[in-house]
């Protein structure tokens, strides 16, 4: 598993995301990302993506989504 914290990821549709947090669950990497605008600035569009086999996909499992949200929320709350 590669640490992608603070990395900027470009997808094949040219959309760009900055990884603001990352967690692993059941051997799978999940990224909390902010979409970048055309100038490379972070936007208020946040997403939680599953990273698998060099692709990013939307997390659709609601229970899993809540677990991840809980995890990312606690991590953000700890930041000063």
């Amino acid at each position, binding site marked *: 598993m590669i640490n992608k914290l603070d990395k900027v990821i470009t*997808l094949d549709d040219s959309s760009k995301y900055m990884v603001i947090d990352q967690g692993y669950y059941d051997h799978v990497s999940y990224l909390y990302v902010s979409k970048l605008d055309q100038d490379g600035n972070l936007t*208020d569009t*946040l997403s939680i993506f599953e990273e698998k086999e060099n692709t990013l996909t939307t997390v659709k499992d609601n229970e899993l989504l*809540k677990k991840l949200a809980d995890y990312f929320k606690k991590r953000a709350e700890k930041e000063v």
Partner: protein
Amino acid sequence: MEEKNGRIVEIVESTEVQKQQKNSKRNLRIMIASLILAGSVGYGAMNLSQGDSKEGQPVVNVNTDYHISSDLNGIEISNISTAQDSIEETKSNPALYAVVTAKDGETADISYILTADDSNVKLEDDQQLVLVENYTEDELNSSFLYQKEQRQVSTDEQGTLTQAGEWQTTDDYIIRNDAPRNSVATRYVFKGTLSTVLENSPVVELPHVMLDNSELNVTTQDTLTDEQKVTLSQQAQNTIKSIYDDKFNSLQDYQESVQSNQPSFPSIQTTTSDERQQFLDKINQKITEMNQMLDNTNEQSVSEGKTR
């Protein structure tokens, strides 16, 4: 609703500016994660715009990729104006609430955001008030969490309840300042004030499986899934039904043989009726025992998961 499925073509280090921007989004990250936890938004991308506000007031406009929304989904105009008027008057309290209208199991529309003083705004049945950020102690103590429970019911032609199953808890919670409306098939069980809930964190009861940048050994099998519970319950019901059918058929055969042989003795009818009642009582007792066993199985399984 945005649904992403894209191949990674490049990964580069972020700039210092982007890292600073990330730090400035900390509250937004917490807020959106809170909304997901509250079940107010489902999967996909989310954003919550906090544009320029007048005199430092919280901003009403909320936009997300979930079409949160210019259409107000049946919210009464009077509610909207009440909320906005109150926001105009509220300058010092930073607490924000979102009024959320459930759309389906996965998505919800956030209709508007209002301050704590508006938290007693009238809500429709399909709406809930979700605490967003910066809640005060008073607000935590005055907001109540209810868990939704459902049961199977049957009614006659007049709509009168004729049969009702056991209440089953759901994963749905709502936050209200007043008691939600119950029905014969749905009820809301008071779980406590938000302060109590947040203290004990029962809203999303999770095995703690997250570690920083490391793999996990805990699996989701530490607890029975809903699907497994349903399967077990169905198996138990089928077993009971099978036993019942067999015994009842035997009883019917017995009754028919008695009736055909001695049709003129009503006392025998009475006896078989008593036997049938006794038998039914036993079956009911058996069902209760099976349900108890199933409950114990679930509790034991959860308990085992927690102690691993």
